[in-house]
């Protein structure tokens, strides 16, 4: 395997892995804040039991998120030293700011996880606020760097060396507003649906009590508040891409030829040789209207750029359709839930098993949507690492052993993923009542 393929695969695997834990690290503090806040205000042990359970799961997830995030900070240099040598004078700063935010998150997570027996109830709850703020801030900063790769701004370069920089303009590049909000909302969305899926599954298993119904309701509540807003932001995001990254939009929509009054073609498999899309339906003029607010607008097709600068059209298009389709599903299923909730009364068992099954499915599907969205933005930018400035192949390391390190890291991620799942199941099987904490004083050597 050549260095470029190995490095791209390595980076793809690392980001796909990290994004799951990062998203939960941003979203779970919100649920902790609400659950423990309700427990504190209403003097309610069940909310406390939920917060306690989530804090244990969060402890495991955060560790994996932290080590996979550390991995990324190494891999930027290990895999893409030429990209970093060029770009990090411009976009290093958001990473430094993200570093501060992450630091705060680590500090207050330490206080939160280990502080149950050390802090007053109020002080312990207050720790969730910096967790929420720092989580959102770190996601925002880190995505500004990715946004910059899509729409670079704020620098001038001569002969491959950056000579002047406006770091603020780089952070506030054209893609930043839509991309950061879109990603941040996605973090909350997947957290809501992941938590809902866990409790929907428990309810299907017949564990129908206040504890599980509340866990479900809070998860669905977060997901259903965010999902419609995400629809609006997603739409804004696509219109932004149409304007600033027309080639990416063409790949997302599998639009081979520049077209006036372009039709929207959901689903379908693009055929690169013939330039057609098979198994699709055409909705006339919808794409022009969606992208530019004018049914007769001209939408730039892939033919506007030379073939060697085409992104991976098939993957980008399929990932985009997957994301949009699942996004719509994430708006519809919660509506079903709330109708059932309203008709049956909030204290009685939740409606139909089919609704619960749909909610269980939506947990993993929401992560699929998250990954798909990330694939759209990354694969849709290929072959550029910095759009129209630097090609991916010019950023890669010349060092030996990149293929070997890829194998190594895939092995590590598998080990981490398996252990995380086993541990979460173990946490899930513990008695649901609030228990005094012994878990953080491990004495494994007592076995021997």
């Amino acid at each position, binding site marked *: 395997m050549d260095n470029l393929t190995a490095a791209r695969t390595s980076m793809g695997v690392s980001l796909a892995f990290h994004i799951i834990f990062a998203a939960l690290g941003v979203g779970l503090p919100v649920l902790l804040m609400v659950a*423990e806040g309700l427990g504190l205000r209403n003097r*309610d*042990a069940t909310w406390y039991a939920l917060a306690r359970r989530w804090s244990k799961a969060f402890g495991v997830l955060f*560790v*994996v998120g932290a*080590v996979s*995030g*550390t991995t990324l900070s190494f891999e930027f*240099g*290990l895999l893409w*030293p030429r990209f970093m040598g060029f770009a*990090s*004078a*411009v976009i*290093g*700063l958001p*990473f*430094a700011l*993200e*570093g501060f935010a992450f*630091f*705060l998150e680590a*500090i207050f997570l*330490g*206080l939160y996880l*280990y*502080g149950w*027996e*050390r*802090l*007053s*109830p109020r*002080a*312990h*709850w207050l720790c969730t606020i*910096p967790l929420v703020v720092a989580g959102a801030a770190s996601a925002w900063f880190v995505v500004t760097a990715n946004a910059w790769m899509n729409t670079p701004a704020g620098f001038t370069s001569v002969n491959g060396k*950056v000579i*002047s*920089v406006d*770091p603020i303009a780089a952070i506030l590049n054209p893609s930043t507003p839509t991309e950061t909000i879109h990603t941040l909302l996605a973090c909350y969305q997947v957290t809501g649906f992941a938590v809902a899926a866990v409790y929907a599954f428990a309810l299907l298993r017949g564990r*129908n*009590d206040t504890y599980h119904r509340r866990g479900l309701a809070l998860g669905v509540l977060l997901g259903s508040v965010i999902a419609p807003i995400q629809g609006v932001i997603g739409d804004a995001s696509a219109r932004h891409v149409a304007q600033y990254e027309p080639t990416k939009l063409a790949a997302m929509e599998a639009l081979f030829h520049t077209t006036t009054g372009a039709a929207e073609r959901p689903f379908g498999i693009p055929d690169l040789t013939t330039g057609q899309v098979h198994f699709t339906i055409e909705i006339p003029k919808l794409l022009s209207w969606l992208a530019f607010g004018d049914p007769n607008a001209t939408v730039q097709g892939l033919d506007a750029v030379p073939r060697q600068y085409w992104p991976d059209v098939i993957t980008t298009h399929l990932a985009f359709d997957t994301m949009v389709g699942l996004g719509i599903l994430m708006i519809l299923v919660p509506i079903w839930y709330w109708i059932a909730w309203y008709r049956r009364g*909030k204290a009685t*068992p939740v409606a139909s098993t089919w609704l619960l099954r749909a909610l269980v499915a939506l947990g993993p599907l929401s992560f699929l949507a998250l990954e798909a969205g990330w694939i759209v933005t990354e694969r849709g930018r290929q072959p550029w690492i910095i759009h129209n400035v630097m090609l991916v192949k010019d950023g890669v390391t010349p*060092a030996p*052993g990149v293929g070997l390190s890829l194998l190594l890291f895939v092995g*590590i991620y598998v080990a981490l993923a398996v252990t995380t799942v086993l*541990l979460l199941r*173990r946490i899930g099987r513990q008695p649901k009542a*609030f228990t*005094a*904490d*012994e878990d*953080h*004083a*491990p*004495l494994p*050597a*007592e*076995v021997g």
Partner: protein
Amino acid sequence: MSTLTLATICAALIWFALTAYAVLGGADFGGGIWDLLARGPRAAKERAAIASALGPVWEANNVWLIFVIVLTWTTFPIVYAAISTALFIPLTLALVGIIFRGAAFGFRSAYGRRIGAAQAWGYVFSVASVITPFVLGMIAGAIAGGAIHVHGQEVVANYWTTWTTPFAFACGAFALGLCSVLAATYLTAEAQTNGDHQMLDVFLPRAILAGAVTAAIGAIAALLARWEEPLVWQGLVGKALSLSLGAVLVGLATAGALILGRYRLARMLVAAETALIIGAWGVAQYPYLVVPDLTLQNAASPASTLTLAIICSLLGMLILLPSLWYLFVIFKIPTGSRPTETAASFALSLQEQEEEQCTTTPEDAGAESRPGGQLPNEAE
């Protein structure tokens, strides 16, 4: 301000973060080293003492390393690119060690006690805690060693020999020793704080012994530098002479404080010792960041980036340092300062009240108006 002044301030910030990582994160690695070496009837108790010292703080301590990395790439991009390219292999090894150290510690805590898996992850944690600081020390030795050349944007270095010199190995051993000294000294001070004489007896002699061994390794590394790395040696006995001597004296003072039973003083002294060692390294190779081609002047980002990096770092520290102080006050100060009612005890008391209510008056349980828990109709 000139770019050179700004670059020097940025290098000082990186030095500060590196020192914080060595003083705090280094001690966490040292905890893993002592975890690996725990033997005999007191092993379980030793491991528990180490785990409770690390638990709340290691994730925050680990972030100092991320700071070092992101500050380096922001302010001296070519330095980060050159080090990452030339030292691809040891950096990958260190990274694997960092991943396993962190993940294994977290997993072991989450498994709790008396589980085979916890024991296995505990072993991973301690082995990774030995490998990582050793490799990081080798990387430091390689950067100081002067075998990484940069011509324009091209990095020229041997991917193996750069970091496998005798001097680099000595640096690795020295880093490992320093971590073990830091951990043993902190654990001694913590044993005193907790009034735990047994752990005091365990870690005090180890702190002194490890200190002596580390000093010997340091002397060997210095001799190797004299023979093999003339640039490093000239720096250490030239520009950085006062810091080098200071490190030796503070090291002796640390041993004295330990012997005299002034453990909290020893904790501060050993931290100062570490700061002096890293400072001596930095001053010795000033103005080079990567000897012999990259200097503060020619590797720095444009002034606008440096200025903003400094402003952001200082503002960030204003939020960060009080938070960090709070974390350490809560977990590293005698247990007598705890509040009478904690979050856990509050939740437990609510639960007991609720269980009483459920057993005495189940009939007046309104759906959501009463505290949650077992509703009568939940049994269905």
